[in-house]
Structures are given as structure tokens and as C-alpha cells.
């Protein structure tokens, strides 16, 4: 049996590139492989940078959608490499 995957939610609305990516990279320290990290960001550069960072790190954006709390920004669900 593997331990349950960790799950982290980051709200990076209002922070500009490269801060959302830095937050993402810090969050994964100590997480189990294949953990899920969710991040909400509203910097237009994040739209390109989050998938690009995932590609470079072997992670993937499982899905992305407009943040559901109505406060703006895009919600990304990122899965770390297994």
C-alpha cells in the first residue's frame, strides 16, 4: 500500500511572474511522488509558465479552469511526476 497522496492548494493571485512558479516549486519539496498541487494565479504569464514549468519538471497540468470562487484567476491542478 502506498500512503495517500499529499494535496496542496496555493492562492497566488496578485503575485507576478516568477513568484507563482517559485511558490509551486517550494510547495513540492517533501511531497510524495504523484502528489497533487493546486494553484490559483491571475498573472497572464502563468498561463504559459505553469504548463512550461511542468513540462521541464516532468509534472503535468491535469486540468485548468476559471477559479470557482468568483475572485478571478485561473485554477490549475498539477500532478507531480510519479
Amino acid at each position, binding site marked *: 500500500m502506498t500512503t495517500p497522496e499529499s494535496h496542496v492548494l496555493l492562492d497566488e493571485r496578485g503575485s507576478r*511572474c516568477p513568484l507563482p*512558479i517559485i511558490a509551486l516549486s517550494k510547495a513540492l519539496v517533501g511531497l510524495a511522488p504523484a502528489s497533487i498541487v493546486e494553484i490559483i494565479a491571475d498573472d*497572464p*504569464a502563468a*498561463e*504559459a*509558465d505553469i504548463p*512550461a514549468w511542468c513540462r*521541464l519538471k516532468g509534472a503535468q497540468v491535469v486540468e485548468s479552469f476559471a477559479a470557482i470562487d468568483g475572485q478571478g484567476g485561473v485554477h490549475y491542478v498539477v500532478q507531480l511526476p510519479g
Partner: protein
Amino acid sequence: MTSRAPLGTAAREALLTALDTGWADPTRLYGEARKAQLLLDAAKESIAASLGVRADEIRFTPSVALARRRALAGLVSVARQPGSVVTSAVEHSAIIDAAQAFGHPVVEVGVGTDGQVNPNDFVAACRPDTALACLQIANQEVGTLQPVEVVSEGIAELGIPLVCDASAAAGYINIPPVWSVLTAAPESFGGPSGIGILGVRTGVRWNPSDFADESTSVPLATAAAIALEDSSRQAAQHATRVSALVDLIRTRVTAEIPDCLAVGHPIQRLPHVVTITCMYVDGETLVRELDRVGFSVASGSACVADDLLPSHVLAAMGALTHGNLRIGLPWNVTIQDVERFMLELPRIVAEARGKLL
């Protein structure tokens, strides 16, 4: 925005001489005007020779931005029907903006992570009613060469004119004469700013509209021609050596700096351009700190751009849009320059990260 190189010595001398001898309006008939016309003709002949085409296929515009707009407008205005405009996703933003301004549907063909379009995808995006296709010779931000020869062959049978923006490539590599219409930027190969080059091949249906030599600055045209000759000559002499230094930088940044990598095509690229991504820093900090120790580089990062929009080129490549450095090596760069750069960069990146992390 075009990456500029300093005015070359020969171009500077030519400009100063031509300011005295080529001041007149070349379209007039008095003696000084005829002298100006001769200088202008010589500039066209020289540029045509550098590009491997005919002198009457070369025109000048008051800027490269205007050359790009006129390149497209002249083709669109004679298009038989309002068919699509096909471009690569990594064309200069002025080309994409100009394409969108006509109201024709614009089809953008994506690129791989190396910044290159797949020629089959590009040709497949062209339809019999496509008004024109735009594919750059090389990319301005990452130096990747585009497969213009294969694309040109592929769309020729459809009769679609091919616009090649050579603003990053002219003066640095041989430009294959496969284009219908070409734009080039003297300011990027050691010529003066304030002038653009527009090439239109004989037989291409292109509307010159009110084009006249009257609006051309003869001294700037003369200096542009000398600069292109000079840079092409230096390319023949130095490109192999400079390209090896680019390889060295690409290898060393990846090996020696954590979370740094070179972007763009490793082999099919301009000989003098290297673009590197340093994760977790903003490019502007790196540019400022490198400038402080004597290196002038550009950032592809958008963090301080007015509109906060990330570089469309890097986004199309799936590359990070922050922490990028675009380095254009001059022909006289030495291994010592590269060694010194590689000594400074790891420290600068580490310090910039220390401030953010």
C-alpha cells in the same frame, strides 16, 4: 522591437560621406539629385547582390515596421478573394498584428519546443484561396531557423506568395532567395536605424501603391548597404567560430547553473544568438546585473512590459516566459568574453534567486 547591433565602422563612414554627397531628393533632375540617385541605385545593387536577387527587386522604407506592413498590405490589396493569411505562431508581433488588421482569417501554425514549425503542418494550413503566407527566416527571440525552402516549394504550386521576415537573419546567414516578399532590418546587422529593406520578387502580384524613392533617405540606404556587405563578409569569416561559442554557452549554462537551460533549436539556429532560461528569477534583474559587469543583453521576459503579456514566441514554444536572456554575440566575441560571462552568470542568478526565494 528589433534587436540592434552597434553601427559598424564601415557603415558609419559611408553614412557620414553620404550625408554630404547624398542629401538631395533622388527623384529630381539637377546635378546633386542625380548624384543621390546614383548612390541610391548603388545601395540597391549592393543589397540585391548580398541577397542574391536583382536590384530592381529592392526597395527602402522609413522603418522595418513599415516594411512589414507594406509587405503584407501590397499582397492583400491584390488578392483575388479575402482568403486566409497563414503565419507561424512565432512571427514578429508586427507581422501578426499586420496580418490581423486586414480582417482576413489568420491561421497561426504552431511550433515545437525548439521553436521550429513543421513544414508539412505549415503547407497543410495553406488553402488554394490563401492570400499570403508569412514565415520568418529565423526567429528574433531564440534564433531558430525556419524551413522556408521546404515551405516555399510546398506552397508554390498553390501560387501563394511567401513573405519572409529576415530581420533577425540578414547579415548573419545566407538568405535563400525563395521568398516572394522579404523584409529586413539594417539596425540589426550593424546598419543605421530609421530605414527598412523591402524586397519584392519580379512577377509577384504586389501593389506598390504610392511607393517612391522620394521618401528614401539616401545616406541611410547607403549605410545599410555597406553594413549588410560588411556583416555578410564577417559572417563568412567568423560564423563557425562564433557558433561554437554559442554551443559552449548552451552546454555550460545547462551543466553549471541549477535550473538553467538553453532554449531554441540546438543546431538549426543563427550562429550568434543564444537564449537561456533561468527558472525562478525575473529576466530584468539579470539584465541589470549583467549590464553592471559590462554585458549588454536583452530579456524575453514580460514582467515589466507595459501590457504584462508574456512573449508569444516563448509561450508558443511551451517555454517559460520569465527569467530569459537573449544574447546576441558580436562577430569579434572571444573565448575570454565567454569565460568571463560564465564566471559572472552563476553568481548573478544565485543572488537574484536569493532575493525572491
